[in-house]
């Protein structure tokens, strides 16, 4: 029972984070390349994150109905900010000298992006992904209200029937998941930063 819920919670988070990467990183690259859309992209993802999670889920539910799809898309929209922002910042903070050298060697814009700028920006992008993942673990609790399952339903039911054990076990599982996810990813992150030039985390 509980394991089932943990798995479904994890599934929601993983699906959302995967989608966030697939959509967020290209958006960050777009923002980096095109000044005209930069402001709009960064503003939209910021507004999305400002929206209350349940309100966002409710609005999506109007279009997609109750279910996992609604939750995953909600989490995706909610986690875009750190990924998009860190991709953009990471790319624009690449040392201009390195960019110039790459250009001087005759690399095309895309080749340069893929072989020079992205690898250098990667640690920062990864930081964004970590933040998105950890936040999603917490936000996925709301899934229960729009029929998405996960640990939120355990906690919610616990509250309804005044069952302390249910609330606590659900909460504990959530905390372990969030702290574990944060711990593992921070560890990878540190190694990434060590491999690349040392710089500060955002």
């Amino acid at each position: 029972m509980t394991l089932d819920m943990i798995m479904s919670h994890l599934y929601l988070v993983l699906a959302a984070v995967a989608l966030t990467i697939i959509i967020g990183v290209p958006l960050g690259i777009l923002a980096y390349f095109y000044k005209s859309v930069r402001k709009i992209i960064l503003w939209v993802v910021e507004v999305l994150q400002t929206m209350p999670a349940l309100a966002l889920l409710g609005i999506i539910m109007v279009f997609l109905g109750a279910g996992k799809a609604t939750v995953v898309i909600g989490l995706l929209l909610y986690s875009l900010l750190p990924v998009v922002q860190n991709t953009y910042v990471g790319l624009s903070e690449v040392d201009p000298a390195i960019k110039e050298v790459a250009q001087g060697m005759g690399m095309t814009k895309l080749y340069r992006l893929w072989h020079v700028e992205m690898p250098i920006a990667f640690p920062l992008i990864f930081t964004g992904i970590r933040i998105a993942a950890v936040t999603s673990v917490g936000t996925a609790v709301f899934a229960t209200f729009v029929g998405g399952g996960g640990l939120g339903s355990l906690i919610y039911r616990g509250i309804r029937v005044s069952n302390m054990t249910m609330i606590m076990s659900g909460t504990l599982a959530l905390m372990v998941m969030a702290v574990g996810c944060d711990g593992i990813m921070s560890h990878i992150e540190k190694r990434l930063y060590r491999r690349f030039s040392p710089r500060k985390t955002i």
Partner: protein
Amino acid sequence: MSHFLALYGKRLSSAIVTHFWYVVVSVVFAFVIAFILGILLSRMPKRANLILPVISVFQTIPGIVFIGLLFLYNGMVPSTVVIALTIYAIFPILKNTYVGIINVSENFKEAARGCGMSPFQILMKVEVPLALPSIITGLRISTVYTVSWAVLAAMIGLGGLGELIYAGVSSNNNALIIAGAIPAAIMALLFSLAIDFLRKALIPKQLRRDSK
């Protein structure tokens, strides 16, 4: 639209007002507590280094748990919502206050001591003003979260915009969902804009760095 307003207008406006007050009261309490605690922690950085990780673990507890637990102990009264939201809103402000103050360069503190400021004057005239960008960022995170978690007040039947969303979700009434969700979203945005405005008013532009 007019039909909708005629039907739910009163309910909507009272939900907005309730929601607004939940947020304002909780954030104000949280700010006062977190600000004081943050300053106290900054006076003992050694202990703070132990306390802060514990706090950030607690921060992973979703707001729903606070509300739920307090509901069980405190019953169905507005103070349950306010206390839960306050606790939850304390963390980001506390952390940002502490980090902001700790990061004030020793140069400025020494200059201030050299000018003959007392420790309290150094705190109020130098440390807090220089930590202000960080503190306000914390305030903003807390406020936006609080608008979000206040939606859950409805879960235990205590009103706010969540009530409309709940009712909409459980009765498959899309109009109701939207009626709750849109004002909640707008409220979060307005709070966030208001805090940006506060930031501009309080911090000279030469000091403003985009700290997120």
